[in-house]
């Protein structure tokens, strides 16, 4: 995606500068319209050649597409859809994630706290684990 947008932007900028230069050259080399009075300042509105106009419009379109493709993807605003994306992102490799966090920032899982609630700690299982560990460690810890 980055390659596409960079190519589009580069091509658009090249065409834009070329067409603006062409327009400037055209307006500076074309003599003023004889029919217009010497006090009228703007005469070149309709006299710009068609190819320059088309090149300009095409370059603008390329640049717009490139800029939009280059921008960060939008994020879903409903909590439900957002959490779904983050959940899916956890199994995706780096670089293919749907939500790109800015540098030095993390997009946290919104339901992470559910996994870490102290009130839901299984104290009996922990006690059994501890007992197993004591039994395995041998007599020197069983003082």
């Amino acid at each position, binding site marked *: 995606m980055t390659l596409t947008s960079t190519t589009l932007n580069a091509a658009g900028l090249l065409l*834009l500068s070329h067409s603006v230069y062409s327009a400037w050259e055209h307006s500076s080399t074309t003599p003023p319209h004889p029919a217009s009075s010497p006090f009228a300042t703007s005469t070149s509105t309709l006299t710009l050649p068609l190819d320059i106009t088309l090149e300009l419009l095409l370059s603008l379109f390329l640049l717009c597409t490139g800029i939009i493709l280059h921008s960060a993807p939008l994020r879903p605003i409903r909590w439900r859809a957002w959490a779904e994306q983050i959940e899916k992102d956890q199994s995706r490799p780096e670089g293919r994630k749907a939500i790109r966090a800015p540098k030095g920032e993390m997009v946290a899982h919104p339901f992470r706290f559910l996994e870490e609630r102290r009130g839901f700690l299984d104290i009996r299982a922990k006690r059994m684990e501890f007992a197993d560990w004591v039994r395995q460690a041998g007599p020197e810890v069983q003082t």
Partner: protein
Amino acid sequence: AAMIDERELQIHPIVQDSMQHNTKTIDNIRALTSSLFGVGAGALGLSSYAGFLFYLVGSLIVSTLIFVLRAEGPKGGADKYFYNIWTGLWLGDLMGGLMGFVLTWTLVYGLVVA
């Protein structure tokens, strides 16, 4: 209507971070593209209403491109990325972009045409 809105928000909560992120992204795109439209309008030698019409048409095209390329088009649903798609996308930051547009429009018009 307010009661229904409130209930709807409780059932489907909104993520403020995502809304801010989307607004910022749209504003960035608008600022960049509208300055470019100003360059275009100036080089074409448009003046008065024609220039503003150019800006409106260009912004509409940009909004459509965002809608198709970034918001999954009609299949994504209007409310997946925007709380209100009219103020969020179609009219989003039109006035802010207009400033940049007029700035580059007058500059390039002055350089190229006059």
